[in-house]
């Protein structure tokens, strides 16, 4: 049903050639996007919820992330099933799962944004530089990228965290190194194809210096791909962080990382306390799904050449 409306809208509103829109028409743009890409809008909504929850964690969470709350009825608070006091139950120490989930949103967002801002931006600079440098530098760098590509993202991340020790910032660094090679590759090939376009040739012909072409013509036209890559890799970063923390080498154990919350669930209490193993996973899944479908929709809207692929 949703997809039918989607298609009709696509027919009625042909994609525009320009990728830049003035920000003033913000709300109208959002409405339009929602009409054309309902699934993408749901993704955007999930992302928005994540951001709000992360920002307002102290207001929203009933207890602290490390707090051991008293039970209203008294007695031990370890592994209490979901009830009116602890909406999502408590964990093996007696901490409120809901509160930890809410604070965990901060970790996911911090690691996701941190690694994507650093990783995608750095890859962009390197990718553009390589495409322009060409020759032996480009060749050599391409081989380094090939070598980096051979190291699976998660395994690199594991090795780096092993070397540097587990802290959130090291996790960010590990994710950055894990994502940089494929992104450089994508950006480089995008810039190479942009360089061949007529308007770039025209700019060169009227004597525009290379830096002007890069900043006025190439980079603005990479904006769409930047946004799309950033959205996808936010999901990737959140999954890698969760995986590392799940394996016990990511966020330090007292931090309420969603992945870390699942470590115990996998090891024990499968039947006695399933809530501990279910809710953090739902959170990871929802957020990553949100970023991915938003990324898909953004790609379709911003880059008509890739529509539906």
């Amino acid at each position, binding site marked *: 049903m949703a997809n039918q409306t989607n298609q009709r809208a696509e027919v009625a509103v042909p994609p525009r050639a320009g990728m830049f829109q003035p920000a003033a028409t913000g709300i109208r743009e959002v409405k339009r996007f929602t009409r054309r890409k309902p699934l993408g809008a749901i993704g955007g909504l999930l992302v928005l919820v994540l951001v709000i929850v992360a920002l307002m964690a102290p207001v929203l969470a009933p207890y602290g992330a490390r707090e051991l709350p008293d039970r209203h009825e008294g007695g031990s608070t370890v592994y209490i099933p979901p009830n009116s006091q602890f909406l999502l139950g408590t964990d093996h120490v007696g901490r409120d799962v809901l509160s930890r989930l809410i604070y965990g949103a901060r970790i996911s967002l911090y690691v996701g944004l941190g690694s994507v801002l650093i990783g995608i931006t750095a890859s962009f600079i390197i990718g553009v530089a390589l495409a322009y440098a060409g020759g032996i530098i480009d060749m050599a760098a391409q081989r380094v990228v090939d070598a980096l590509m051979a*190291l699976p993202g998660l395994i690199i991340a594991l090795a780096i965290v092993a070397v540097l020790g587990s802290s959130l910032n090291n996790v960010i660094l590990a994710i950055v190194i894990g994502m940089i090679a494929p992104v450089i590759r994508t950006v480089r090939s995008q810039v190479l194809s942009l360089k061949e376009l007529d308007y770039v040739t025209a700019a060169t012909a009227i004597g525009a210096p290379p830096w002007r072409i890069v900043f006025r013509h190439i980079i603005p036209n990479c904006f769409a791909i930047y946004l799309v890559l950033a959205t996808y890799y936010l999901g990737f970063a959140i999954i890698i962080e969760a995986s590392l923390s799940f394996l016990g080498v990511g966020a330090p154990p007292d931090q309420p990382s969603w992945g870390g919350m699942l470590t115990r669930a996998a090891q024990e209490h499968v039947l006695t306390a399933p809530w501990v*193993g279910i809710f953090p996973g739902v959170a990871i*899944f929802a957020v990553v799904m949100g970023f991915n479908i938003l990324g898909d929709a953004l790609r379709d809207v911003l880059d008509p050449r890739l529509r539906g692929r």
Partner: protein
Amino acid sequence: MYAYIARRGLLFIPTILLTTILVFGLFWIVPGDAAMMILTGEEGDGGKVTEEDIKRVQKELGLDRPVYIQYGDWLWKILQGDFGDSVWYGTPILDDLKDRFFITLELAMLAIVLAFIAAVPLGVLSAVKQDSFLDHISRLLALVGIALPTFWLGILVIYGLTYFAGWLPPLGYATLWGDPFTNLQQLIFPALVLAFHDMAFTARVARSAMLEVMREDYMRTARSKGLNEWMVVGRHALKNALLPVITVSGYQFGRLLGGTIIIESVFVIPGVGRYLIDAIIHRDFVVVQGVVLLAAAVVLLLNLVVDILYGILDPRIRYS
């Protein structure tokens, strides 16, 4: 043909050399260095380690030599099959890895095969009936497969098995040759979990490859000859669309290897993953270094094989 293989093979050498440099470099910049670790391990408390002790152990390990000599020495030993000894266990790494490696490889292969079997029909149907209900369902399934963390899906499978079937795969590990039935019982669920994730990617690629091929002129020709639709799809489209799918499956192997490491932790399978995680927790860098290098080598080698196969199957590649 031979020229193509030679060219592709020559490209492999600098790449693998660079990979060894990256892996070596990563562990060379370790802040807490190996000598310190061995000493604290020996004497049980770090407080009593003196400057001289560190110097002595560094000399024993050859850490006082220039870095390029250390690298050369390390590489030479690896070429001879000596990955060094584990600092934690004190045993040669390659001995520890041998059995575990085959477990991980078997798991990964099983997952790839399962993913391929599910993904190709899904992708093809999705492309043939583009924008149908089926297409939307299969695309949604692909999105779900990418977004579901494998370890969580693993936990859910364990929950499901214990809750609904009251059964769990037998712990430990039975070899494929010794006890194939138990072996399959142990590996099939983790393999299915991995395959679901892998399938998501492969189905996407299969779909877009099919869409690409369906637009080709020879498809119109085949239809205008009066061939029935399934003949056209099966004989003309699928054959050409399968190539990129196989390539991507090959390139996916690295990602799959990462997933295997996590899923081994969930299902308590004594493969390379568990070994690697233990090594990281014990800060046993020699092991981590060895495993990372081995994983990279396997991925590179597989990519080489895929590229060569691709060249054999598709002559256009050879001459480009």
